[in-house]
């Protein structure tokens, strides 16, 4: 019999009950909650007279609606304010392990604050009413997004009704070149397998390149598993995982730490484990990536030219390319390096951690944002990230270069607050989705790494960060 994959182990260690057709009840260890997808779930509990099964598994924080400047003015949009206040009231009523209300010094993006406070641990099941919950798979946790009905289900029962996914291994061999990041690896994988390539699968990321990534790099990679269609992305924990977690607020302490380490050591795929699908990439062949279209799979290396629909033989794909070029205001065969930009966004649950900011600051240091750029903004992922960056002087580097240095939140990744593109504006963004209207109606998004975004801000157009 073949050995087990890490996903098998995580799944099997959480099955509470299984029906004949494989539909299972899975126990949930960590429930992350934000203001957008939870109000209807708490209301459902209230209407049914139910209480959270285990409220000390809840880590909550408003992030999508919160403004990134002028915090003294509060939340000006009354609809946004009501949603954030509703979360305050729900947590007050139902309780939580961690709650950082708006303006708390540690508030931030839920997928940034979870790990940095040690509330995401290897071997856990982690859910949140947010598709980028896959981020937490970087710790060897089974982590994925759920809908609001499922949020209510987890609150009420501490379980999720689920069926086991198929298992995919994405192995990235070799080494990444200088200037090539976890973001580029994620985009290259999506470019290879497509946005539906991982549908129905849990992806385990392995290989030399993944082992060499820092924990923050692994979070960036797992964050974008959902953009490849996979609800969950997982990286087996190792000494880097332990080093990252040790001493964090909610990480195990004392005798539990040693016990936890021993258990975490078992969390890897067996050598003879079989996957339902295996995809292999060579890290050395990955160049900095830039999306040109309206789906993350519409991505190319920086040196490429915008595709020509006339060369596509598949009718549906040709229509997709034509629609994307039209929406993006691009002409076929334009070199990506010639695409001029209006705005720059460095932030989001994909790329707003301290290493992202350090990398972007390194590119921006001593330079100026091009005069053609209307706005270049840096939005740290959390209060902790912001304080760390300021202690290192990164804020000054950004401000001197002409970037705006903002308060933490989801910001222009999805533009639920005031940070958004105007119709037709083109943005180099370190976020995760380039869908139509994602950063504002009519806005045009190109996904890149923090280094590439910073370099584009300086040049006013895309450039190969390896050459600057």
């Amino acid at each position, binding site marked *: 019999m073949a050995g087990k994959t890490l996903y098998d182990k995580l799944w099997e260690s959480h099955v509470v009950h299984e029906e004949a057709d494989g539909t299972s009840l899975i126990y949930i260890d960590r429930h992350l909650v934000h203001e957008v997808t939870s109000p209807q779930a708490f209301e459902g509990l209230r209407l049914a007279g139910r209480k959270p099964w285990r409220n000390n598994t809840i880590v909550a924080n408003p992030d999508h609606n919160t403004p990134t400047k002028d915090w003294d003015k509060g939340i000006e949009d009354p609809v946004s304010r009501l949603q954030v206040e509703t979360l305050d009231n729900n947590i007050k009523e139902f309780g939580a392990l961690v709650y950082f209300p708006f303006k708390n010094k540690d508030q931030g993006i839920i997928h940034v604050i979870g790990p940095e406070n040690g509330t995401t641990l290897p071997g856990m099941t982690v859910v949140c009413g947010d598709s980028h919950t896959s981020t937490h798979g970087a710790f060897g946790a089974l982590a994925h997004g759920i809908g609001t009905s499922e949020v209510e289900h987890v609150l009420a029962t501490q379980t999720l*009704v689920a069926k086991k996914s198929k298992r995919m291994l994405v192995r990235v061999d070799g080494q990444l070149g200088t200037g090539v990041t976890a973001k580029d690896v994620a985009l290259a994988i999506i470019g290879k397998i497509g946005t539906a390539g991982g549908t129905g699968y849990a992806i385990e990321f392995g290989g030399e390149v993944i082992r060499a990534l820092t924990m923050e790099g692994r979070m960036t990679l797992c964050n974008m598993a959902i953009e490849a269609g996979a609800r969950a992305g997982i990286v087996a924990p190792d000494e880097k995982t332990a080093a990252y977690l040790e001493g964090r607020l909610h990480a195990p302490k004392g005798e539990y730490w040693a016990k936890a380490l021993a258990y975490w050591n078992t969390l890897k795929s067996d050598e003879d484990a079989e996957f339902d699908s295996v995809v292999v990439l060579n890290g050395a062949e990955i160049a900095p990536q830039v999306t040109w279209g309206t789906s993350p799979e519409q991505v190319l290396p920086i040196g490429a030219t915008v595709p020509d629909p006339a060369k596509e033989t598949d009718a549906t794909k040709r229509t997709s390319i034509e629609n994307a070029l039209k929406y993006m205001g691009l002409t076929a065969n334009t070199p990506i390096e010639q695409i001029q930009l209006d705005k720059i966004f460095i932030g989001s649950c994909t790329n707003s951690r301290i290493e992202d900011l350090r990398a972007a600051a390194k590119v921006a240091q001593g330079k100026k944002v091009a005069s053609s750029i209307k706005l270049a903004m840096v939005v740290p992922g959390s209060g902790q990230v912001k304080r760390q960056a300021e202690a290192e002087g990164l804020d000054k580097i950004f401000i001197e270069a002409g970037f705006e240095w903002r308060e933490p939140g989801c910001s222009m990744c999805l533009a639920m607050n005031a940070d958004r593109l105007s119709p037709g504006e083109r943005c180099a963004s370190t976020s995760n989705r380039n869908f139509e209207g994602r950063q504002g109606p009519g806005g045009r998004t190109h996904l890149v790494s923090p280094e590439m975004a910073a370099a584009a801000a300086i040049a006013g157009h895309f450039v190969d960060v390896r050459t600057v």
Partner: protein
Amino acid sequence: MKAFTTLNGLVCPLDRANVDTDAIIPKQFLKSIKRSGFGPYLFDEWRYTNYGEPGMDCSTRPLNKDFVLNLPRYQGAQVLLARDNFGCGSSREHAPWAIEDQGFRVIIAPSFADIFFSNCYKNGILPIVASSAQVDALFKECEAQEGYRLQVDLASQTVTTPSGHSFTFDITPTRKHNLLNGLDEIGLTLQHADKIKAFEQKHQLAQPWLFA
């Protein structure tokens, strides 16, 4: 949850692949703390020519006359015909809420994104996976024939076209049972409360730090 048994419904074809949840319901409408009232904002950026805000009266907004949902022949449609990877992107359940509120109860596509697919079942919507060839045929028939309707029967897991051609679809027995009977999933799970408690005790012994 609303039960689903059978439906004879007008079909609306949405001929685009990778329709994402941002397109289904743009983010500004996610600020609502209710779970109803999203129907008028379904496909908002494709459906209207002005920018929609929550609470807006959509009856007076300028329509994009070319968008399929606005064509007179598809008014009152209950079956949405779609292409590959429908519902990709975010986990927002506002997407199926908007689809259901607009009046759709069935979506037929060659493939769906995982989270959207499971969100449909929680809201009495039946997502049907059909082969690409089958979906292609339905698109052609639907566009050729005004008033094109499909008969969907969950008990027998069949879809029947106006010409009498039928095809079957897969659904897990658990989902089928819950949907046919409109069962409350939380209530069902709580019938296993003793099992959950027993699991929890065992889990705590194995990984006590998760309960510290």
